[in-house]
């Protein structure tokens, strides 16, 4: 316990200073969410590269939680879906059902190039399509994998903070 306390004292604050708020049109749902976005992450067929970056975005350095975004366990609690990867055949229906399970108002963020336009997996066996082919997408995050800053920026568009 003492060593943990010393570590806390030594490290101090690791969160980077908040960059300026992102420019760009906010998704329609952002107005009603007003500073609080609960996020449910759906892996529709990702290579797990994006997951690592999402983990970093919610980690202490980028700290997406300080803008009012929080990961939750149930889509019923969620306002936004964070979908990664191409939508594979087995995940198309579960993704649809997850979208169904979210209460209005809701938003979908497609994270990474695969989710946006199938990326390197375009036309591959077992791929149904990009996320937008299955559920309506409100925001996109570019990159393969995307940088944590861009994921945080997309979430900030939703929270408006």
């Amino acid at each position, binding site marked *: 316990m003492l060593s943990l306390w010393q570590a806390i004292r030594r490290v101090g604050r690791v969160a980077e200073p908040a960059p300026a708020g992102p420019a760009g049109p906010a998704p329609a749902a952002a107005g009603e969410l007003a*500073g609080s976005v609960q996020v449910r992450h759906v892996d529709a067929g990702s290579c797990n590269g994006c997951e690592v970056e999402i983990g970093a975005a919610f980690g202490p350095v980028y700290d997406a939680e300080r803008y009012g975004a929080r990961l939750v366990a149930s889509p019923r609690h969620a306002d936004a879906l964070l979908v990664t990867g191409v939508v594979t055949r087995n995940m198309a229906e579960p993704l649809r059902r997850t979208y169904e399970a979210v*209460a209005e108002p809701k938003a979908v963020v497609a994270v990474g190039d695969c989710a946006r336009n199938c990326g390197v997996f375009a036309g591959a066996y077992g791929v149904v399509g990009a996320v937008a082919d299955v559920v309506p997408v409100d925001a996109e995050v570019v990159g393969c994998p995307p940088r944590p800053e861009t994921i945080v920026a997309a979430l900030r568009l939703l929270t408006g903070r």
Partner: protein
Amino acid sequence: MTALGVVGGVLQAAVVVGGAPLLLGLMRQVRARLEGRAGPGIGQPWRDLRKLLRKQSITPRGTTEVFRVAPVLLVAMTLVVAVVAPLVTTASAVPAVADLFVVVALLAHATVVIALAGLDSGTAFGGMGASREVTVLALVEPTALVAIFALSVPAGSTSLPAIVGTVLDDPQRLISPTSLLAAVALATVIVAETGRLPVDNPSTHLELTMIHEAMVLEYAGPDLALVELGSAMRLSVYLGLFTSLFVPWGIATTATPLALGVGVAALVVKVGVAGAVLAALEVFLAKLRLFRVPELLAGSFLLALLAVTTAYVLG
């Protein structure tokens, strides 16, 4: 029913409803800072509630009115406790209900209602959460009642205003072994009943490790807002009761505006400090395995029994 009691009851309800989400925000902020994060600010739970109230409610197919009524009852029962317990003033709005047994049993009833809602959803996680929550409740209840027993022996009554009044009259009792042992036992009860570490992890995302969260996975929108508000209020009320029982200074004994103001300020400061300490301690704790939890609770039960025995031997 005195003027002081009624005014105090209204004030307490307002302070608890308004302050409970802020307490939760404070605790998250303390934790975030200790983890090296910036944190979302103590107003975040209120922002979450505001948003949830704007969202749509969802009734899963196959659920009954038990599912729908449970969040309302959770908040209502906690609200009753917030009104009648001595938090801001020593007088109670409804003295005939301000009994320590009644208060603890009402809070337990609120838990039961949510457990029934979890069972009503008929999902595996709902049943699992309900089963675990009720198991913890069944093991916590004895500790709570025996600790109450220990606290009520010096006062000669289980009436909350009487117990708090006795302590105010004779503060030396607080450093008696009875009081200290009972305090430790009650602290364990509070940690277990409000689902904090090491009994339950309030911020877990993994269903299999959940206790409280697993029961409420089906709630959305305003229903979820009530569940979250109810949980936050439970925490505040428990901490408020704890501080009133063991650190009662500042609590209003007269109905003057100054005394009431001091009472509210003292309550906010005391509960805030207690919450911050709890949150800071949580950073150092890992969640216990579910089947290690009974050992913790059995230990607290023994402490409570010991408290009663010392109350007799030294009393």
